[in-house]
């Protein structure tokens, strides 16, 4: 875990926003204050003018018998002008007299003349009532001044009202500023106007009843700065105020007894022509303490993260060392088993050796899993795409579980969609790791006798070819809540005693994500589970060879395969025979084949599990119903040696070893269907013989027996002008270094290094993308059903004595079709 240093965790911008609000607030207050001052000035001027006008009016124009009374709309008396002697004082008694007189000026129109004028200002309305004797002489000048008075009066009322409102607002603003928890100081440019709120008083140490002046504030600042812990820094920065309006991030740190830290914001304020500087002291003591604490925690975390990283490195190193220590002897075991494999062994011994080898490899794979997770955690695992055979990948994965599946009678099948490219580019080892994990879990949690199906297809997601793989089991299923956490590391569900590290699915998830794919599970309790992943891959060619393309050669092969098998098994292969003349008829018992007319079979496949121990009877039913000995009956079963011995007496023709794999079926079809469909006239064979169009291809024959050389030479001469023949493995390797071969026919039993070793050495001399097709030619009965040939890198094999048609078929497959069929 890596942490960033976190010294900026307190958002100073946030503080500045608040300070700016205060500054604006203060500016508003000053503005209002100024406005009030201005209004007061206007009011005073108006009053002054009115006073002069009144004096003129009263002295010169107001008749002695006219009185003026102004009322506001709430009937309160706001003005009164009555004639009185200049020497007469305006006292309470005078007002009383006036009121009485006003009362006398009742609206008795017979005795008095009443003039009523409405007054409207921005803030109030009222009535100006002029009352006079009916015979009063109202001079025109009086009328003018009366009007003037009215205007002045309105002006006064309006200004007064505004001033009152503003003063109230100003009081409220000043009250807010005074009660603000943030100390604020304002000193105007002339140093005459100052403001300090209560908190500023406290900070500066002034008593509340003490009047403040600019001089006093200057002394206060000086005292304050002297108490600072960072006095020198503050004083230094104070100089900046000479050149700038404000200072950013200015911390004033007080030690005891104040023991506070302030973020000081100072700013020049210009309102109209009024200028001053405001000081705001934001208390950031707590924030700073938090900051300091966070810094300490951050340092601790960085230290811990570094320690964890070192521990991880140590752990990874330890695991790598341990894995190496375990892998070294395991490699010894596997190496020894490989040597043992090349010695003379019975079929059963061979299978057992094969199981030891596969299991050893699986153990190494497990060790690698642990190492991989450590590498993933440490970010050291890299995705390494390579070109590989998709068929081989999935078949290999199924082979690993041969023994386990056999033990639990679980039927494993791989359903490869014909749309799958034969060769893809992706990280083969990581995909294998995921598939093995899925299949391992499926086999582990599936009940005896059930099916585990691997469905593989290619599809396009967002323009990218994507490998889609589902591993479907018939186990107990997984609860919905468990599905969510099943890909978390160290989590195992359902059966706590199932073994394993609990890392498997977590690794799968991480690997899938690293490859840009998705992973998941669908399941219902008691209905099994479907684990799936989808991973993008690259095609090796703009028009890749699809698996279905490999079956086009069967398009015109008129043959029929009868099979007694389960629905699941037939599904596995049926998709490949669609639209082909090669027919697949699947029924559950031998008798059913004879209930309705069927196309005569070229080969009969019988699943030993499906007929449940009645193999002898099954074969007899076929033979007794007219199926001649010429039609091969191939038994499909798990155990080779045991069942071979047991079934030998029943008269079966061949055995196909389960798990069900496409290549196994194709091998049988190649071997038996091609053999059985050659009952055609030789003339027809001649027509089908490939023409000599193979001039661009080079072929090598490795065969020590002179007679066999001649046989093969004659066949090849029919389809190509040039090819090379050598009689030892050593010569073949040397030739391969000098010349690029497209196809090699390899005898296995050679003097010197054998054909298997020769093939391995030849493979090493070619680039991965430039490998020749190598077909084993063997009379060795041990090898024909073993995986040794595949593992040695052979693409195919033909048993001796082979037929001309078989050789030509291989040439057609591999050279004319330019497809690399993995069989």
């Amino acid at each position: 875990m890596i942490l960033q240093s976190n010294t900026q965790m307190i958002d100073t911008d946030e503080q500045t926003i608040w300070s700016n609000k205060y500054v604006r607030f203060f500016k508003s207050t000053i503005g209002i204050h100024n406005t009030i001052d201005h209004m007061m000035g206007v009011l005073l001027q108006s009053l002054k003018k009115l006073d002069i006008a009144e004096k003129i009016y009263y002295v010169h124009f107001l008749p002695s018998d006219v009185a003026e009374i102004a009322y506001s709309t709430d009937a309160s008396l706001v003005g009164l002008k009555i004639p009185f002697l200049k020497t007469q004082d305006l006292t309470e008694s005078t007002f009383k007299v006036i009121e009485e007189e006003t009362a006398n000026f009742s609206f008795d129109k017979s005795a008095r003349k009443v003039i009523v004028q409405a007054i409207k200002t921005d803030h109030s309305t009222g009535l100006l009532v002029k009352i006079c004797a009916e015979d009063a002489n109202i001079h025109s000048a009086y009328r003018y001044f009366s009007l003037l008075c009215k205007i002045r009066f309105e002006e006064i009322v309006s200004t007064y009202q505004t001033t009152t409102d503003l003063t109230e607002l100003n009081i409220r603003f000043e009250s807010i500023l005074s009660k603000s928890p943030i100390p604020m100081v304002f000193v105007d440019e002339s140093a005459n106007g100052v403001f300090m709120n209560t908190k500023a008083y406290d900070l500066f140490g002034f008593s509340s009843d003490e009047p403040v002046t600019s001089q006093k504030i200057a002394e206060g600042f000086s005292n304050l700065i002297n108490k600072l812990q960072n006095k020198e820094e503050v004083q230094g920065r104070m100089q900046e105020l000479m050149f700038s309006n404000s200072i950013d991030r200015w911390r004033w740190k007080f030690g005891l007894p104040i023991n506070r830290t302030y973020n000081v914001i100072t700013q020049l304020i210009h309102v109209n022509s009024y200028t001053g500087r405001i000081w705001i002291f934001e208390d950031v003591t707590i924030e700073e303490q938090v900051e300091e604490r966070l810094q300490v925690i951050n340092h601790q975390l960085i230290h811990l993260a570094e320690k964890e990283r070192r521990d991880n490195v140590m752990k990874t190193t330890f695991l790598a060392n341990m894995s190496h220590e375990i892998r070294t002897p395991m490699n010894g075991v596997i190496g020894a088993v490989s040597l043992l494999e090349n010695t003379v062994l019975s079929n059963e011994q061979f299978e057992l050796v094969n199981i030891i080898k596969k299991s050893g490899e699986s153990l190494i794979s497990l060790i690698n899993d642990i190492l991989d997770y450590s590498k993933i955690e440490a970010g050291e695992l890299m995705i390494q795409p390579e070109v590989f055979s998709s068929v081989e990948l999935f078949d290999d994965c199924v082979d690993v579980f041969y023994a386990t599946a056999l033990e639990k009678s679980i039927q494993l099948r791989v359903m490869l969609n014909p749309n799958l490219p034969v060769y893809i580019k992706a990280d083969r080892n990581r995909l294998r790791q995921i598939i093995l994990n899925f299949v391992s879990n499926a086999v582990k949690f599936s009940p005896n006798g059930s099916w585990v199906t691997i469905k593989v297809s290619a599809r396009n997601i967002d323009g990218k070819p994507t490998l889609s793989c589902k591993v479907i089991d018939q186990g107990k299923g997984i609860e919905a809540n468990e599905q969510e956490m099943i890909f978390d590391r160290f989590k195992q569900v359902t059966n706590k005693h199932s073994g394993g590290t609990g890392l498997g699915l977590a690794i799968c998830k991480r690997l899938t994500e690293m490859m840009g794919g998705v992973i998941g599970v669908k399941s219902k309790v008691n209905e099994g589970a479907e684990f799936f992943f989808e991973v993008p891959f690259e095609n090796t060619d703009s028009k890749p060879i699809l698996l279905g393309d490999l079956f086009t050669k069967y398009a015109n092969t008129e043959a029929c395969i009868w099979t007694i098998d389960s629905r699941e098994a037939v599904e596995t292969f049926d998709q490949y025979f669609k639209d082909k003349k090669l027919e697949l008829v699947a029924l559950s018992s031998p008798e059913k084949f004879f209930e309705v007319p069927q196309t005569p079979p070229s080969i009969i496949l019988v699943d030993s599990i499906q007929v449940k121990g009645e193999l002898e009877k099954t074969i007899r039913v076929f033979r007794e119903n007219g199926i001649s000995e010429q039609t091969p009956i191939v038994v499909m079963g798990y155990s080779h040696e045991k069942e071979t011995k047991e079934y030998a007496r029943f008269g079966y023709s061949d055995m196909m070893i389960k798990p069900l794999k496409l290549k196994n079926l194709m091998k049988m079809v190649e071997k038996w269907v091609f053999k059985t469909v050659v009952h055609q006239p030789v003339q027809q064979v001649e027509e089908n013989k490939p023409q000599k169009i193979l001039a661009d291809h080079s072929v090598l024959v490795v065969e020590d027996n002179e007679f066999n050389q001649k046989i093969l030479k004659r066949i090849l001469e029919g389809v190509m002008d040039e090819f090379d023949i050598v009689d030892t493995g050593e010569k073949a390797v040397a030739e391969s270094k000098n010349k690029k071969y497209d196809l090699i026919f390899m005898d296995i039993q050679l003097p010197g290094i054998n054909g298997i070793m020769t093939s391995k050495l030849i493979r090493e001399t070619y680039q991965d993308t430039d490998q020749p097709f190598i077909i084993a030619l063997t009379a060795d009965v041990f090898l024909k059903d073993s995986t040794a040939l595949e593992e040695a890198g052979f693409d195919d094999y033909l048993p001796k004595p082979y037929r001309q048609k078989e050789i030509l078929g291989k040439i057609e497959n591999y050279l004319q079709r330019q497809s690399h069929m993995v069989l």
Partner: protein
Amino acid sequence: MFETHQFNPVLDKEFLMENYDTTEYLVEVLGDFLALMPEEIEEIKTAQAEKDKDTVVKKIHAISSAVGFVGGIELSDRMKKFEVKAKTDPDFDITNQESNALVNEIDAFIGIIQEEYNQLS
């Protein structure tokens, strides 16, 4: 063509018809067989006399496919079975009756091929 030719029953006529489309071709193959095999069978007999099991088994393996190529499919299969037995049984006696019978049978087979060669050519 040799479709009407009556082959010795030990030969798989179907195999021969399938593999060799003309009589000339078949005769050529049979001729090659006859040119090489007598020497091979003599070497087997010598190795057998010397109880050189390894050489006997290797030679049997080597010529088993040649025997098959000239139609001796059934004999070729038995030679393979013999090879398996000899390889898997460390105590297998290369001079035992079964071994001798097989060598004699191969010898006789060469004679049959010689007859066929004579008839066809």
